[in-house]
């Protein structure tokens, strides 16, 4: 395969396209509606109406506005339809013949679409993820050709470093620096793509893998060339069967076309990618636990250093990045580091994909430049709370925090979010309204961390249980001032002494809600009016009865 052959595939694909293309979302969100039946119905109606010669109907990836799925778009007009049922198929085909179908038309000029800047999601909802030809027609694999034939590995790393790209998994470690560290080590090296997305309410990685799997493969291949690895693993959680299926198809097609495997683009660069499926443990998103899991061991973290860049998979230097990080690579190579670093803020460059969920009008997948304010995302793009007011935005899942409405003008970048006591995280954003109770929110996330703790280190294994019990007591109006003081002490201890990121960040939802919504805790304490923290004797008795009752259920 060389550039002319790649171009030939693209040209053939473009020339075979019909004048009108009707694309119907086939990502998990719309499929959970009736997306699959809808696609079949659209094809049937088109055949029935006799205009099928001029139109092409195909499935595609996520179009973003998941809360109004199933979604259908017509190209090249860009007209969109929302909440489409199979029964509407005839009407949509009718619209192509000049019979307007306005009831289900989606407004494509709303801020949800206009405020977005799509880099990672450029092809999502546009191409058929099951066909490599469509990806190639969108300049796919050109960046890989460019680096293999025209750049040295050092130049690739330089480009990535200059672009200012930071890890999209949440911690925001500079990607170029990580690549350079792995490149410097010698011997056998591995690539890992972390697709073990586990935050409640987050589905960025799933959407990217379901909508544009080749983009991730291309990014990994470029990374492998840069650091000198020849084997990669994509670790996808087992709860994402469709993403796994599409990745399998993509890997097969890429190998068939000589874009993965040996002597890629007639160079001496070899790269093989295999999929590893996670068994449902949240902690396997932590890199050392993920590596243990790929090795076939129990997925528990180990202390760092040594970092995976020095000693990772089977003791070899390993480059491990998130799905979205790899998905950003090919565009950076094609458009240049200056173009990418021109987007975003001083310390957070480029764009970030977020999933909007919770109490907002428009829930779904968006990609915005770094530095966009929370207000723009939640109130303009998300359309605010239906019939209510935003109380807080939860970012970063169980490792993040609640940002109150008064701080909605905070720009979304790594440092600003950290300053207000939350984190960027992988990109989950949950909107809370006035009816949401912050103690309950904290308790929900703590229950999650308690269930997902691997049990290796004592502070996380036992501390999360004790924090959860205190939160439950306070939420049920049984807590005391002493409990609240104990809660703070526990949060500090678990955060400071836990072994891995899961435990170290588990108290964050409690700490941030205590910071901004302390009254929700104090107002329901049983001794809120007493001046000292002592507990009345009758209450102590009551508590011990509760304890005994719980104990008899086996704790």
């Amino acid at each position, binding site marked *: 395969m060389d550039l002319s052959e790649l171009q030939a595939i693209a040209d053939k694909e473009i020339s075979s396209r019909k004048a009108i293309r009707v694309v119907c979302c086939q990502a998990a969100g719309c499929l959970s509606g009736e997306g699959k039946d809808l696609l079949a119905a659209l094809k049937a109606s088109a055949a029935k109406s006799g205009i099928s010669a001029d139109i092409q109907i195909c499935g595609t990836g996520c179009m973003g506005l998941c809360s109004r799925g199933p979604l259908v778009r017509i190209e090249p007009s860009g007209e969109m339809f929302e909440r489409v049922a199979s029964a509407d198929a005839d009407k949509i085909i009718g619209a192509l013949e000049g019979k307007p179908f306005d009831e289900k038309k989606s407004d494509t000029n709303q801020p949800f679409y206009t405020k977005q800047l799509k880099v990672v999601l450029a092809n999502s909802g546009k191409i058929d993820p099951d066909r490599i030809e469509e990806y190639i027609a969108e300049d796919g694999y050109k960046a890989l050709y460019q680096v293999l034939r025209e750049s040295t590995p050092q130049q690739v790393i330089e480009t990535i470093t200059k672009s200012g790209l930071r890890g999209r998994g949440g911690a925001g470690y500079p990607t170029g620096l990580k690549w350079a560290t792995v490149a410097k080590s010698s011997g056998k090296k591995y690539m890992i793509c972390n697709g073990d997305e586990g935050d409640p309410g987050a589905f960025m990685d799933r959407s990217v893998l379901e909508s544009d799997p080749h983009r991730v493969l291309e990014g990994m291949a470029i990374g492998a060339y840069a650091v000198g690895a020849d084997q990669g693993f994509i670790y996808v959680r087992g709860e994402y069967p469709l993403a796994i299926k599409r990745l399998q198809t993509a890997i097969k097609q890429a190998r068939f076309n000589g874009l993965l495997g040996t002597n890629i683009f007639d160079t001496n660069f070899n790269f093989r990618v295999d999929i590893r499926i996670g068994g449902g443990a949240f*902690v396997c998103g932590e890199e050392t636990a993920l590596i243990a899991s790929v090795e076939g061991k129990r997925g528990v973290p180990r202390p760092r250093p040594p970092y995976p860049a020095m000693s990772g998979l089977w003791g070899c230097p390993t480059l491990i990045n998130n799905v979205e990080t790899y998905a950003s690579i090919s565009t950076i190579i094609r458009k240049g580091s200056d173009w990418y670093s021109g987007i975003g803020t001083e310390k957070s460059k480029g764009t970030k994909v977020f999933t909007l969920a919770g109490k907002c009008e428009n829930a779904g997948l968006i990609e915005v430049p770094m530095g966009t304010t929370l207000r723009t995302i939640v109130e303009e793009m998300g359309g605010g709370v239906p019939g209510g007011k935003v109380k807080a935005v939860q970012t970063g899942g169980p490792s993040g925090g609640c940002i109150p409405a008064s701080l909605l003008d905070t720009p979304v970048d790594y440092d600003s979010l950290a300053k207000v006591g939350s984190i960027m995280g992988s990109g989950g954003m949950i909107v809370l309204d006035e009816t949401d109770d912050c103690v309950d929110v904290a308790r929900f996330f703590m229950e999650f961390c308690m269930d997902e703790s691997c049990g*290796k280190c004592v502070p996380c294994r036992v501390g999360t249980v004790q924090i959860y019990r205190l939160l439950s007591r306070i939420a049920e109006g049984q807590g005391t001032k002493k409990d609240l003081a*104990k809660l703070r002490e526990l949060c500090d201890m678990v955060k*400071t002494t*836990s072994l891995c990121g899961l435990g170290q960040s588990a108290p964050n939802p409690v700490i941030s809600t205590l910071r901004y919504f302390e009254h929700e805790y104090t107002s329901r304490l049983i001794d809120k009016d007493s001046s000292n923290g002592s507990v009345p004797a009758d209450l102590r008795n009551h508590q011990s009865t509760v304890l005994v009752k719980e104990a008899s259920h086996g*704790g």
Partner: protein
Amino acid sequence: MAVSTLTIDGREVSAHEEQTLLDVARENGINIPTLCHLDGVGDIGACRLCLVEIEGSPKLQAACVTKPVEGMVVHTDTERLRSYRRMIIEFLFAEGNHVCAVCVANGNCELQTMAINVGMDHERFDYLYPKRTVDITHQLFGLDHNRCIMCTRCVRVCDEIEGSHTLDLAGRGNKSHVITGMNQDWGDAESCTSCGKCVLSCPTGALFKKGSTVAEMKRDRTKLEFLVTAREKKQWRL
């Protein structure tokens, strides 16, 4: 062999590169408490008792898995560390079912000793009273999960020293526990060589030799008669 000089609790000490901070401290008579560490098997940094403060590092580091670096300034016994250590021990007591009075290890228990050393005089957290089982299917040994603190010393000894890997872990969070064989009764685990190293490595009374636990003692009264007969009638057979 590269040697580095560092400061631990105000004392200048020297360290070889293959040592850990814990090794260096102990070599110099500085006691850092540990529970999951066992000389001779790999360290995992799980109990978090050996956390120390290193100047210039925002995070606490586990001494058992941290390499000494030239010029490092380490504090092993600050008020903050003492309070965290006390909480860790309180956590362990709250988590399992530790009843010293009826335990085989009473008086010879590292958890008990540690509680005294860190100054834990009462439990401030909710006892969880978990429902846990006891496995006495093995011919020689018993495993009482109620007393297990998940230090995994036994798992590592069985794997790294004996090489039979009969013991491992299952479950997650506070439901994680030691298993034997293919998660079967210990007595049915064919890989067990009955070497007993797991029992020797256990810091508490979770692993024990059969016949040594409370209420296990049996009296064979016929032995009395035998001895009397042997002495008085010089008859050694019954």
